[in-house]
């Protein structure tokens, strides 16, 4: 059994995870019952939160970002399906065992979760709508592979944010991806990659780039997956000038 002084002395080591493994487990057990240490560890974590950015950024391998996105989304969908049946079975057992009282309580919890998710979605939509309401509308058509879609920008000059809608595009050919660009006074500045081709439109809200000077317009290109940095290398599909 360690005295409280030991935990006080090792708060920084725990918060930065440089304690040895056994001591980490000891510290975590202590935290369960020590509000002072929990609060102080949280404060240290916040103060040192940026320290990992002392390292310069690493350049991801070509295609890594898209691989991550696809993997995370696919895994999320698969996990949801995989757990659906067991979860339903467990829920049914609980309902049978505990009767109507438990059913009511579980239903209330589920509804509460739904409300939380809907509130978050509503807030996100309100944020997007606020940009759209104030925004100046710029639009152009985009033709890819015989299909005709469009690029629409709601440019909010008050908050300097844009809501960007890309619609009607087919999935990008293998080895390529859609890429949004800012046309700036000093050249093209890379914006967000576009997930398109799921059958519906894609929409995102973005701030102005920190580099490149004044923003003069925007462009949409189809880039080879290896081109994660630098200027556009692929085919320009559309551009809009302010």
């Amino acid at each position, binding site marked *: 059994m360690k005295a409280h002084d030991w935990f006080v002395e090792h708060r*920084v*080591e725990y918060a*930065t*995870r*440089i304690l*040895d*493994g056994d001591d980490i487990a000891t510290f975590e057990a202590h935290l369960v019952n020590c509000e002072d240490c929990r609060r102080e560890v*949280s404060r*240290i*974590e*916040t*103060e*040192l*939160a*940026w*320290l*990992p*950015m*002392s*390292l*310069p*950024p*690493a*350049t*991801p*391998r070509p295609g*890594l*970002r898209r*691989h*991550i*996105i696809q*993997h*995370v*989304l696919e*895994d*999320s969908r698969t996990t949801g399906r995989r757990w659906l049946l067991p979860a339903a079975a467990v829920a049914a057992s609980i309902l049978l065992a505990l009767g109507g009282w438990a059913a009511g309580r579980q239903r209330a919890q589920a509804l509460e979760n739904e409300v939380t*998710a809907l509130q*978050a*979605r509503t*807030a*996100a939509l309100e*944020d997007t709508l606020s940009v759209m309401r104030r925004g100046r509308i710029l639009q152009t058509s985009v033709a890819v592979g015989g299909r005709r879609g469009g690029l629409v920008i709601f440019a909010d000059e008050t*908050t300097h*944010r844009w809501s960007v809608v890309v619609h009607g595009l087919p999935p990008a050919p293998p080895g390529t991806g859609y890429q949004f660009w800012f046309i700036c006074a000093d050249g093209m500045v*890379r914006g*967000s*990659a*576009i*997930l398109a081709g799921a059958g519906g439109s*894609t*929409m*995102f*809200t*973005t*701030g*102005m780039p*920190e580099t*490149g000077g004044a923003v003069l317009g925007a462009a949409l290109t189809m880039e080879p997956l290896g081109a994660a*940095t*630098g200027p556009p290398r692929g085919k320009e599909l559309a551009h809009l000038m302010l």
Partner: protein
Amino acid sequence: MLKRESSGSRARPEPSEPGRRVGLVAEREASIRQRLIARDEQALVELVELATPWLLSVAQAMLQDRDEAEEVVMHTFRIVWENITPDAGGTAGLMPYLLRVARHRAIDRLRGQRRRERKVAAAALEWGLQSIAPVEPDEAGHPGWQVHAQVHAAFEALPAEQRTAVQLAYFEGFTQSEIAARLGIPLGTVKTRQRLAFARLRTALSGLKDWVL
């Protein structure tokens, strides 16, 4: 790792209209967070675009293995995508939360796979603060560079012996006992150097709140 000679030796992107930028930072972070909670896949795309170079850098430095580092980064985004809450990361914000998750996953991997012994043995043969150097990309293409410059300057301002003690523990995952053995100094000295260093860093970094998200 930490190859740059000094924080002022490279051209920096000029901050454009700082007052405006700070406001946009908070708005954009709130927007991304809300949209992640609402399962907006494009928000995930934006986050991956912005954060991957920084997360990869941390994971690579710790694991010394690019494939494993990429797995850690992927796992980090999966955790965030599946568990994001309105208060994830507390007051520090979304990016520090991501950095912390990535670093903790890398540490788990280091310790869980007992790679420590292999790494110590290899390091004994080749002493020095060598590691896979993150490729320095085009600065202008990486939002967050200004934060990096400030944090790096704070780190470089530490006395050399304190910097080494923190670097080996925090960025390369060595335990205090291993560091003591490696540097040939008492364990207590390692602890003292680290505590002094972290105290300085806490002071230097506590006011840093700005980021590109």
